[in-house]
């Protein structure tokens, strides 16, 4: 259900009063139609840490290809998603395996992000309904709370996500993920906003699981290219196995 409210957001002007428009704007900024990113992922706990580098290519909601660039142990491991079909490719063994779409739920390489987060299988705009919540001031900044609830027919991992959206640039600064029992399970924060190809983009994403406050995973976007012209066969099994 659409909720209209006077809510000024300079970036999209009058459309900011429509929660659907606001959600669509934020997703378009962050996700774009076609993007290619160089990502560094840091998994941190008090006792150990781990760093991975990834290239992530995404086209719309249906196509994604990720390639691990380091460390050596996983280098070259690729994951292709076409709609709900997923394949992993291990170039050293020349092995392509079809994996269950339920693997979208699993942790990505031991991090606090899931395959779904990395392969961008779900879309906030398409898979959720949206409604405005309270106005919030945090650290001197004004935010609007937006509640996203999973649509009945959507196959998403999180039934409810509460976003804290900046009134200044209309981009989310926090996502709070809730499970079916309405328990808060993890918080994703966005910071260090930069501009890439005309898109405002948070380059630092920090995921904090709520069942283990000593652990967190940070993603740093080193480079993001939007409106990339991928080759016709980029999101195909032929390209997946050409590494």
């Amino acid at each position, binding site marked *: 259900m659409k909720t209209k409210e006077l809510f000024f957001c300079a970036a999209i002007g009058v459309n900011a009063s429509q929660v659907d428009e606001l959600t669509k704007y934020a997703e378009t900024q962050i996700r774009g139609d076609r993007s290619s990113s160089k990502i560094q992922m840091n*998994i941190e706990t008090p006792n150990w840490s781990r*760093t991975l580098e990834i290239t992530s290519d995404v086209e719309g909601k249906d196509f994604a290809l990720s390639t691990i660039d380091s*460390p050596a142990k996983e280098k070259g491991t690729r994951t292709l998603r076409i709609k*709900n*079909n997923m394949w992993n490719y291990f170039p050293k063994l020349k092995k*392509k395996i079809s994996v269950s779409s339920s693997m979208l739920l699993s942790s990505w390489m*031991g991090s606090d992000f899931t395959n779904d987060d990395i392969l961008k299988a779900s879309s906030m705009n398409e898979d959720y309904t949206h409604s405005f919540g309270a106005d919030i001031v945090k650290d001197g900044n004004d935010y609007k709370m937006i509640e996203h609830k999973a649509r009945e027919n959507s196959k998403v991992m999180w039934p409810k996500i509460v976003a804290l959206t900046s009134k200044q640039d209309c981009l989310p600064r926090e996502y709070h993920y809730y499970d079916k029992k309405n328990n808060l399970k993890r918080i994703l924060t966005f910071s260090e906003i930069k501009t890439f190809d005309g898109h405002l983009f948070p380059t630092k994403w920090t995921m904090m699981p709520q069942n283990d406050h000593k652990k967190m995973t940070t993603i740093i976007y080193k480079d993001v290219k939007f409106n990339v012209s991928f080759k016709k066969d980029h999101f195909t099994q032929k390209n997946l196995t*050409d590494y």
Partner: protein
Amino acid sequence: MKIFVIVILLSSSALAQVKGSLSGNVEMQGRQVNNSDEAKNEFAQDWDKEEFYLYQGNLNGKLEFKDSKIQSNLFVRHAKSDLLKKKEPIPYLAPGIYSFPKKMVSRDVFKLVHTDTGRSSETEYIITNLSYEWNYDNRFAMGRLNINYGLGEIFNPLNPFNQPTGLTTLNQVSQGADGFNTTFFVNDKHTLNFYILGDKTQDGYDGQIQKTLWIHGEYEFTEKLQFDYVAGEDQNRHKLGSQIKYNFDSSMMFVQVLYQTDFTDDKPSHPLWDAMIGYDQQLNSKWHLRFEGGYQKMNRYMTESSFSERFLPAEYFIAIANQYEIHPLIKITGTVFTDVKDGFTYILNRNTFSIANNIEADIFGSIPMVKSSSNDNPAQKIITTDIGISLRAFF
């Protein structure tokens, strides 16, 4: 002078387009193995408890040009144990299981294998991959190839060129096969592979290379339903098979069937057929479940020395493999395998610890809980009880 400069410029431009890379891994593994009464009494395996050490590694090389690449892999394996000492008339059979797959080149024409045998050790230097690949609209490859397809992890009869390693403690292992492969990407839904392979190792080379002519196709009926088919002649048998995979919303199910005729020459044989059903589901973010069950027709003409040709020491089997991530750096895998006909039951546990970005360790154990009293499947009798540790590094 001008010509010389042009040649230099062209050469440097061509070289700039060439990318090369080296990578690999090394592994040390030690295990204590305990023999069973059945192996002692029925197969003259006269030992109780031994130690077995395995050092192995891969060195991968890759040179990429514009549309083509040359790839290679050198696999080195050094095994050390008193069980490797020569013994007549029946050799010690257990090492064949610990270093499974023993035969690293499944269809061998070019030798590219060197073995040094010591008094109680064995070192193998094997090129498991040396291939040229040309990627145009389709793909052509020749040389020593790694052929990997099929969803089975414990039993994967659809692919006779690479044995599944789900029940072993080894990973990063892939068998080679000599020949040619052309892959046609017919359309978004259909991929067709043609293989022409050779083999001169089946029963010793007698001047006649056995040919393999093989088709493997993948066809996607719908987003959820995929069909694989294989057909051809391989190791003097005609073979025909298929795999059907169905994706449910949160799981995957697959079925494989492979039929093999008797030998095309006059050697004594009978037809073989294998079937399996598999199920795979990520139950939550930490727990992964796999089920495989099936039937493998026993080969009445199989000898002790050919145990490894058909790996599973069972006729009717059910296997359940659970993998649980108790910590981002620790994964526990437990596999229970049982032959529902004769009761043979085997348990394998493997705990993998990520020690650093490129180093991991395994602690593993395997126990044959029940062995059949019948002699229908003699391979069961030689399986030992093991506990071991391995350390693996990648570069």
